[in-house]
């Protein structure tokens, strides 16, 4: 087994940790941060595979993921803020008016 695969394993572990966080945490901002962590885990896998394959495509993909993450954070935080304005809380359990 070569060493680059260790990074892939690490990325999977981080992804799973992030996913568990999304499932368990109720604070929308923490959920948001967990999603960022999952994105980063995927990025790490991209970079590792880029090294395995010997080209830069994976790193370019990471670059675009960063762009999307930046846009997502701007929009996501604005949404969280406006939810906070209307229900005075950022817990996902409190913003459940759209259920059913």
């Amino acid at each position, binding site marked *: 087994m070569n*060493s680059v695969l260790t*990074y892939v394993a690490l990325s999977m572990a981080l992804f799973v940790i992030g996913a*568990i966080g999304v499932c368990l945490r109720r604070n929308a*901002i923490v959920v948001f941060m967990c999603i960022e962590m999952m994105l980063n885990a995927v990025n790490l896998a991209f970079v590792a595979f880029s090294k395995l394959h*010997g080209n830069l495509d994976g790193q370019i993909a990471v670059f675009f993921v*960063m762009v999307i993450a930046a846009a997502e954070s701007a929009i996501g*935080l604005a949404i969280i803020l406006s939810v906070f304005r209307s229900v005075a809380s950022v817990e996902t359990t409190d913003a459940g008016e759209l259920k059913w």
Partner: protein
Amino acid sequence: MSFIGFVIGVVAIVSGVCVVGLRNPLYSAFALVTNLLAMAGLYAALDAHFLAVSQVVVYAGAIMVLVLFVLMLLNLKSESGRKLGFIRSAVALVIGCVVLLSALPPVFARFAGMSEVTVSDNARDSEGTVKAIGQELYTKYVAQFELSSLVLLIGVVGAVMLSKRRSVTLQPRAGGLVGGSK
């Protein structure tokens, strides 16, 4: 994996667990900053220098500062007394382990045949220097690159529209979240 890579990996895992585990969202945020910086270190260890630096600039320098801003402005207390739920946590953990155990072996099996030699042969082509990344971005991926600028623009406009207050009395001051002294 070098020794330094190993240490950074451990830091990444531990800080990742902290993000999920710590009650105070602000601590989670600081743990995530640590995690992101560790990631930058891992990128550097994998010869992706440009990505390592932009990881620090974009994630640590911009995105997480925004998150911190929001957290500090909202001044949230730790998550309310209701417990996370033991059963729920257990289920999530079990599922996580299942994912990990069932997804890792196929990947390893697929790439196990690649020896260290081929990887190091490839390494020269995959060194993410600023020049190499720029070359790719502005030739092969130029359309996507331009599109991504559009995505960012839309993000900016969307964020401004969303955070504009509807009420007339509470107009935010230009530029500052806090506003000047009055």
